[in-house]
């Protein structure tokens, strides 16, 4: 049994209910008419193949049928997080242990501000 957390159904579901749909966060060129062939080709055909943390698009095909994102480690196959479309990943190549939460970030900022005041 291998379970994946669906952020829309808000529960763990059996893996066979899901399908992978490739790399996530691929931005379409804002103006396709003026972008270069190379940029358009990159957008259409070229995908990352990282060793380590990878953001992927999945669909809960048998279930709510919503697309969502998974951050997955391509070495260990570990799923680090699942998050809704439009949300930002917490685990990235720059922050493999997870970005500090908003609260921690706010605290760090507050500390920095106080130190600034002291200086």
């Amino acid at each position, binding site marked *: *049994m291998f379970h994946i957390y669906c952020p*829309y*159904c*808000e*529960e763990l*579901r*059996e893996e*066979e*209910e899901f399908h992978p749909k490739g790399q996530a966060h691929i931005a379409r060129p804002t103006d396709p008419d003026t972008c270069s062939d190379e940029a358009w080709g990159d957008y259409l055909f070229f995908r990352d193949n990282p060793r380590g943390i990878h953001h992927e698009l999945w669909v809960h095909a*048998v*279930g*709510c*049928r*919503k697309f969502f994102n998974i951050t997955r480690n391509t070495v260990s196959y570990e799923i680090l997080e699942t998050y809704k479309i439009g949300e930002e990943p917490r685990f990235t190549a720059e922050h493999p242990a997870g970005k500090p939460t908003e609260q921690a970030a706010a605290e760090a900022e507050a500390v920095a501000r106080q130190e600034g005041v002291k200086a």
Partner: protein
Amino acid sequence: MSDHTLTCANVYDARPATEVPAESPLAWSYQNTGRPSVSEKSRVVLRERAMLGHLILRGGAIVLDDAVRQVLGLQLPGRPNALSHDESGERSIQWLSPDEWLLIVPGGEEFELEQRLRDALGDARDTAVKNYAIVNVGGGQTLVELEGECVRELLMKSTPYDVHPDAFPVGKGVTTVFAKSNLILRRPTEDRWELVLRRSFADYLYRWLLDAGAEYAIGVEA
């Protein structure tokens, strides 16, 4: 954006009164496979509730909730995988996805209900949240009830979803994998389970249920 706003929908009665009788999706299966009779030994009883009105509502939760309350006096379940019934237990509404609900009403009510919902939602077109859809899917699916002491054993053989009462309380319904196919599994009361089957899978799933239920002497109520 007003150019893209839906201004009219093709609304028609999917169940017109004609000489040709409508058939349940399981009609052929009853003839071909038969119906094992219910006996004292039956620890699972299968009952089809054919020809109910099934409507799919799509749109924003707040707009649809207003309309459903106004027309049916029912609250739209906002939590994932929630299922609610009216007092009679005849009408139910189930969360299918963040913008999709399944409404099941007694057969024959669905066309009038759809029109009343459209009337109630008509006002919604003037607000910022304009888009909704109501689709009659009654012809595409059927509802099968399972009752008896061994229903949970039968379900455990068929679906990887956890059907233990702790994980699957009354008032829950999920779309999930079932016997390599998929269906909507719901638990309206303590001892009754409902399966919403697609018409094209109905025969396969019926035969699966008879096979899986054979050891519990499954019976089919006419």
